[in-house]
């Protein structure tokens, strides 16, 4: 058992070590990137293992919801067939917009393909400033916007998913041409600031409009629920459901 003086010396030593650590960080000499890359690989293996372990539960749950899912798929199929021509127009428009944007000072050429760093808790992608990633870049999967790059480290970047997008809003447009602001409340993606008389219906697709770091025409999702509870409000809000889950995709694009 240490006496009071010995304990005091220990705490002073610990404070000294702490000071040295802060000083090393200040000088950028505390480089943990190699260890972090290893930990990300390890977490990825754990994720795969946990997925395998939980797969039977998901299968049972999926079987339970099979008929509902089938109906939903049929609905989505007919919906998809109806909007193919519209998407082609959008694609053309997108191409033209891309050409316009590429003629400005900003460069939108760079597309980096990356695997998400798999973790149930943190949303990261395994590319960072070493690949030229910049904060605010769009994270996509097959044309669907999943989130925006937040903090960029040397070899990884954190992603703000659209449901977590509280400090920034994106201008979006529905397939019926209604413009609004896209925000997150932590759990859901919300389409806000829509005039109460604007035509919104469940199933409408939502696309991005041009914004810093985000091009127009990216699919965000479809309207799952329109809140028209209070007619006194000048605006209405809708909940947007994403068709792709960040945690389930194997690869994402960062643009």
């Amino acid at each position, binding site marked *: 058992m240490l006496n009071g003086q010995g*304990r005091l010396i*220990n705490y002073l030593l*610990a404070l000294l*070590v*702490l000071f040295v650590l802060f000083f090393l960080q200040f000088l950028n000499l*505390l480089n943990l990137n190699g260890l972090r890359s290893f930990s990300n690989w390890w977490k990825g293996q*754990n994720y795969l293992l946990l997925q395998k372990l939980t797969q039977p539960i998901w299968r049972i749950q999926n079987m339970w919801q099979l008929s509902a899912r089938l109906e939903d798929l049929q609905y989505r199929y007919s919906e998809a067939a109806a909007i193919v021509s519209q998407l082609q127009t959008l694609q053309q428009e997108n191409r033209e917009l891309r050409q316009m944007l590429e003629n400005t000072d900003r460069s939108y050429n760079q597309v980096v393909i990356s695997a998400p760093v798999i973790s149930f*808790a*943190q949303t990261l992608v395994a590319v960072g400033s070493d690949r030229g990633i910049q904060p605010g870049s769009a994270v996509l999967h097959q044309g669907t916007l999943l989130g925006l790059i937040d903090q960029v480290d040397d070899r990884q970047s954190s992603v703000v998913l659209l449901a977590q997008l509280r400090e920034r809003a994106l201008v979006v447009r529905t397939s019926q041409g209604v413009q609004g602001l896209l925000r997150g409340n932590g759990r859901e993606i919300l389409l806000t600031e829509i005039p109460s008389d604007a035509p919104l219906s469940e199933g409408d697709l939502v696309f991005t409009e041009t914004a810093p770091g985000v091009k127009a025409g990216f699919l965000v999702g479809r309207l799952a629920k329109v809140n028209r509870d209070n007619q006194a409000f000048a605006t209405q809000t809708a909940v947007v459901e994403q068709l792709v889950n960040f945690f389930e995709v194997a690869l994402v694009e960062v643009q």
Partner: protein
Amino acid sequence: MLTQIIWLLIILSFEATMGLPLFFMYLGDRFLGRLSERLSLFAVFGISLCLAIFYNLSWPIMSAILLVWYFLRTAFTKQTPIYIITFIILQISLFFLASLTWHYFYLLHLAFFIWYLVKFNFRKYAS
């Protein structure tokens, strides 16, 4: 001791995949209790390094937080409610510092942790 450290690292890697380091901190704390006072004080830096790596945090900041927690833990070692409160505050600060997001695994993980606590700790007091 080496086996225990490897075991703790495996637990941390799983917990970093799922959510908060509940078991890692709890078992790490018990591990610290088995070390001499000087060694345990410096093992705190090792624990904070592991947390900094797996949760992408700053090592010095984690060390500062864990040292404060360690000081409170040693100062109020016999007062269980204060220990629990400091443990919860530590976990909440980790949640916000690491920008963690909610996931269904949290509930499962938390439920398992509470079950573990009840089974291996409180029953001793009851008997």
